[in-house]
């Protein structure tokens, strides 16, 4: 769920700006109505090598990811999504008002981040805070082309319906994948 205030805060309500309050309220209501938050978390064994990381034996290239997970034996891998209906609502809304579509799109960004934060908190709780910061496929020298491989590794396509396009983007578009290293 997202509130009007959370959306305004994200957009910078300290700035001297005006908003169409009615559209803002509508965007928040529609965003809350069409979001179907789902996630999948998988614990994986980690083996770092200089140019990448093996998760459960599956190699992901990225020297900076390797450095990020240095010292971690395990990692929580997850994917979170707001679902396909969220994309359809943005699509529908853009014919009514581009402003409305844009605000729903913004709301989606806030909501998916909130969802990731919640999952991150759960992981932190379970491993007593001994975790790294969140890292995603596509950061630094990891390749966005590995996104579907990552989704397959955690069964995100089967379990929560997240897939990649030919251009390696995730669908539904309001989806995030993340890696959280766990150290002893």
């Amino acid at each position, binding site marked *: 769920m997202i509130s009007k205030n959370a959306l305004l805060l994200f957009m910078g309500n300290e700035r001297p700006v005006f908003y169409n309050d009615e559209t803002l309220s509508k965007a928040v209501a529609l965003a809350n109505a069409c979001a179907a938050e789902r996630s999948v978390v998988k614990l994986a064994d980690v083996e770092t090598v200089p140019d990448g990381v093996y998760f459960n034996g599956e190699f992901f290239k990225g020297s900076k990811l390797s450095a990020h997970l240095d010292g971690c034996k395990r990692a929580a891998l997850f994917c979170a999504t707001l679902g396909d209906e969220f994309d359809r609502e943005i699509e529908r809304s853009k014919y*009514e008002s581009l402003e409305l579509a*844009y605000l729903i799109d913004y709301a989606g960004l806030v909501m998916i981040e909130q969802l990731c934060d919640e999952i991150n908190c759960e992981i932190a709780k379970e491993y007593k805070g001994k975790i790294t910061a969140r890292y995603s496929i596509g950061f630094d020298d990891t390749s966005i082309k590995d996104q579907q491989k990552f989704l397959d590794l955690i069964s995100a396509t089967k379990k929560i319906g997240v897939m990649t396009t030919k251009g390696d983007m995730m669908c539904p578009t309001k989806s995030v994948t993340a890696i959280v290293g766990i150290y002893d």
Partner: protein
Amino acid sequence: MIDFNQDLILDGGMGSSLLERGYIGLPEKLNLTSPEVIEDIHISYVKSGADVVYTNTFGANRFKYGDELDKIISAAISIAKRSGARYTALDIGPLGKIVGEGGISFDEAYDEFKRIILSAGDKTDYIAIETMTSLTEARAAVLAAKENSTLPVCVTMSFEKNLRTFFGVDIHSFVLTMEAMGVNALGANCSVGPVQMEEIAKKLLECASVPVVIKPNAGMPSVKNGKTVYDVDEKSFAENMAKIKGMGANILGGCCGTTPAHIALTAERTKAIEAKHEKAKGVWVCSAYKAVSIDGHTVVGERINPTGKKKVQAALRADDYDFLVSEGIKQEKQNAAVLDVNVGVSGIDETKAMLEMIKRLSKATTLPLQIDSSKPEVIEKALRYYDGVAIVNSVNGSNNSLCSILPLVKKYGAAVIGLTMDENGIPDTVEGRLKIADKIIKTAENFGIDRSKVIIDALTMAESSAPGTALVTLGTVEALTKAGIKTALGVSNVSFGMPSREIINASFYDMAKSKGLTLAIINPAMSMLSGSDDAVNFLLAKPDSAGIYIENTTPLSMPVSESKGDLADLIVTGQADSAREETAVLLNSLKPMEVAEKYVMPALNEIGKLYEDGKVFLPQLIASSDAAKAAFEVIEEALGDKKEEGGVKTFVIATVKGDIHDIGKNIVKAITSNYGYKVIDLGRDVDYQTVVEAVKRNYPCVLGLSALMTTTAENMATQIKLVKEKFDIPVFCGGAVLTPEYAEQIGGIYCKDAQDTVMKLSDFFARNPAFVKQA
């Protein structure tokens, strides 16, 4: 041939059985490397009482196995046959790719499924398509099966607790679409355990008229001591399956986590239970998201039709699909139940336009579509690619029309409108029209189409040109209704040539309704037509009815006469409705172009400057753009045909191949359009060649390309190269990952945002007058 009306027990999970035996990795590969393991699993299910085993081919497709595919499928069938099962089914799962925008096309998916089916060579007893979540993909698989095999087809989708798939497909739409395509059994598998499956099974049984298959998981998975375990034991599983069989599902099996023990107990526990399934009745049409009954009075929105509508004609010729789709959305809000789609205008590729409209309307609205064309080639493509069950509008009584279109109607399970006219024209008597109706219905039945799916259009003619014609139409509707035949009318023709047409239309509509009219093909915005139900609901004090009544009637009331404030202020502050009203007021005293020059353009300049200065941000810029657009719409209406055709500055824009993000491109479109540029929007994920062709068609022009991702920014480079090989035009580039350096490197001109694009366009056209087309 297998009879799906008998009670059947299917096998259970293959993956869980393999894990139990310590096998990980690609399961289908084991058909070649460890066939004895797969055979052992099949045998364990047969011994548990399974009548059917599914071949170990769920993930067997070319994407995963390349050239090994044929060997894997052939081995899987042999192994399944050796198990001694009464029946074997060729198991086909999803391809693991998005089918549709951003992924592989429907035709590519169809070809992949065709390849699997041809490879299997009808050596099993039936084809089981399962775990589908996309209706497009399920349709591609079923069509491939129907067109390349003689085997019966069973299809199951994976529904979530909200009774929809991940892609939002609802159960009723799934059932209607699959039955329309002639599947022999259907149902649900995977995703949920047997408890949650009860509700899914209930809904499936309510909607289906073919036997229903249910294959739940053994509950939810969790990891214990490093092993995946499911939380529903065989006893609970069998108890729930017994309940589901008692509800009417006669084909039962298990999916993820189920074992021979689950199947054995289910077979035993359900044996004595009779599956009584009362078949669903009635005629329905549907989109992927919504089903609509057409057994009662149904409003079909007529607005997407170029006949007599210059704006629609112009939009179709300019590929301005946004305008056409927004007409669809408006009609959905005005209570249309079905949308008629007619794109027949001279000088365009009707098939291409129809498919584009179907694609866009299917995303932007939930309403089922009525394919309005008389051309078999357009209808064939439309029905093939439409995710749902459509109405075909129309056939007529001529043999040529009936024999070319009715087979398509039958193949895709559509409903069809039959016009009471033939080679000799339109009869001017009730008897004459009934005779043609009778011929259409009988011919449809000969093609295997039930008469309940044939809707006869009694034809509305202009009363002003042939007095008495309305009575013939009404008489035909009345006689057909009495005979139990569905009827249709395009209502508004009746008032042609008369003043205050709405009054005549509304009266004629009421008269037709009183005679039993089924499908009214009308403009649902007309208050006198669609407002009446709202008024009744209001008087019956139904929830929210006052708001709905006001919403549906207010836009049709007289323009507000008092000023709402300065139009420029209204635009700057993004108040679209007020801007629209104020423009109408100003037009009482000013010429249309004066309103544009005195108020709208200065407002756009002001908001642009505020944005540049960082005083307002994107949401306000867009809101202002929406308000300016509303004002321009009123101005254009007032200009009518007297539009001053100055120089035309054309800007062709697209989101590049592979990229499905388009909000940035849409903002650029909205803002540059308001500044007077003729914007040709090609959409998103646009093929390279489509862009080149659009540039050719609109030359001289400026091209704008948008890309959000690093990977698709590379496609931008390919696109620019292809365009520049043929045309010396500037290419403006924008998107989150772009930098001025990268843009320059790939031969483009970097635009920071929409406002920057406006400034760069203005600068370019000022310096290159040859690019301005003179009217």
